[in-house]
């Protein structure tokens, strides 16, 4: 522990091989087997990613669609295992769950706060204790006893974000989703994340909103087709990414 005490996430030469099942039904599978078609196709979603993230740093992850950003998050969250290499995380990881995932549309906001909080690893007592704070943060007191199916996507997001940030994570995984909130709530989210930064919480921020990545992140990882293209100071990496994307579109 002593040597790694200021390391939050260690990604050691991680590669991920995906096996794409070409046939998901027997109707497709049986002719394929007789016809000698490939049943499984493999491709590398990540190739030899190697980096060390220090505690309290905010790391942006950028890259075109299908570059492996989400796969990387899955590996850090521990829901998927690397094919090669190793990922070591120190501390509790909280993913910002995409809209709807940890929520049930028929349940009320209140019920969903408990459901989502417990899914994210809080105890019932902890959720009860933080309930007021969570709803205050989300600013949805008027709707807290309504089924969330009546919520707008912004309200949904506010509640989801509020629960996630109150789980006291040590590593926060933020995927794209912030884009749905309105400007003032986005500002609030960034403020909260700033507070996290100051408290030594590591944030992995995946986004296509290049400007927010540049402004908000300490370092940026740029990946394309599973390969690490660059990693370093935000401004520089973002610049490189924009340049290369432009080259491709020209």
């Amino acid at each position, binding site marked *: 522990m002593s040597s790694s005490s200021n390391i939050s996430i260690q990604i050691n030469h991680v590669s991920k091989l995906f096996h794409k099942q070409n046939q998901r039904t027997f109707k497709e599978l049986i002719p394929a087997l007789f016809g000698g078609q490939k049943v499984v196709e493999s491709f590398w979603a990540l190739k030899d990613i190697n980096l060390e993230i220090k505690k309290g740093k905010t790391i942006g992850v950028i890259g075109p669609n299908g570059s492996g950003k989400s796969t990387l998050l*899955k590996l850090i969250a*521990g*829901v998927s295992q690397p094919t090669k290499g190793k990922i070591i995380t120190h501390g509790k990881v909280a993913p910002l769950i995409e809209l709807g*995932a940890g929520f049930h549309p028929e349940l009320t906001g209140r019920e969903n706060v408990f*459901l989502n909080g417990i*899914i994210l690893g809080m105890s019932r007592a902890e959720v009860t204790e933080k309930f007021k704070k969570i709803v205050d943060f989300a600013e949805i007191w008027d709707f807290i006893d309504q089924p969330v199916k009546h919520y707008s996507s912004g309200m949904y997001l506010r509640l989801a974000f509020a629960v996630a940030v109150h789980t006291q994570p040590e590593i926060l995984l933020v995927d794209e989703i912030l884009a749905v909130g309105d400007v003032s709530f986005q500002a609030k989210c960034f403020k909260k994340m700033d507070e996290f930064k100051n408290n030594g919480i590591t944030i992995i921020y995946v986004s296509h909103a290049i400007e927010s990545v540049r402004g908000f992140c300490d370092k940026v990882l740029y990946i394309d087709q599973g390969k690490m293209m660059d990693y370093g100071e935000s401004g520089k990496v973002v610049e490189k990414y924009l340049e290369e994307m432009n080259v491709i579109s020209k």
Partner: protein
Amino acid sequence: MTIFTKYKELLVELTKREIKARYKQSVLGYAWVILNPFFQMLVMAFVFSKILRITNLSVPYALFLYVGLLPWNLFATSVTSSMNSLVANSSLLTKIYFPREVFVLSTIAAKIVDFLLASIILVIFFIFFHQSVTANIWWVLPIFMIQQLFTYGLSLILAAFNLFYRDIQYLFGLIILTWMYLTPVIYPTEMFPERYRWIFKLNPMAVIINAYRQVLLSGGTPNLTSLGIALGLSIGMVAIGYKIFKRLEGMFADVV
């Protein structure tokens, strides 16, 4: 086993979600859980006691049927829903880690709650038909436990496979129908051709249904040899199911 300690609250919460969400929208709400099997029983009782005429029973056919039908429904709905539980929760599966059998367990738990509620009608039936019970009724608990073990083991296997090939659920719809006819749910064992009756010995559900009837309707003790075999098969099913499930678990988020 840590699943029942460390993940107890999660299990409870997901079970509650399952139960609440299902009936929040319907007018009669939870009454459907009771009404559904009740009407199913009425229709079947009419067909099999008035048209196809299953006779020579020591108890009214409706009662005979219900004692078998309720646990059978519990089994069939538990397995069918569990099988879909991973696919239905795919967005959680790809975002956050906790042991995936929580999904299967919470689905089964929700079905048990349904079953207990539906059993109210059975109690009313017992009173209505003046059916007396003996001290042997306590056997219901171990029989129920064996049924749940068997259900859990089978559910684990099917839930995992269904992630890879969604056809499993359609195929299973066919299997469960056949299975019901090969289990003495709507008819007594004695009506089944004697030379094929050995099938029931290998079918834990047949043993379980017969055992319920034995302790609830005849007031006797269950056939311990058969129940022992069923227990052995059920434990084996859980052992194999758990092993397969855990083996494939690491791939769930990748294939879903």
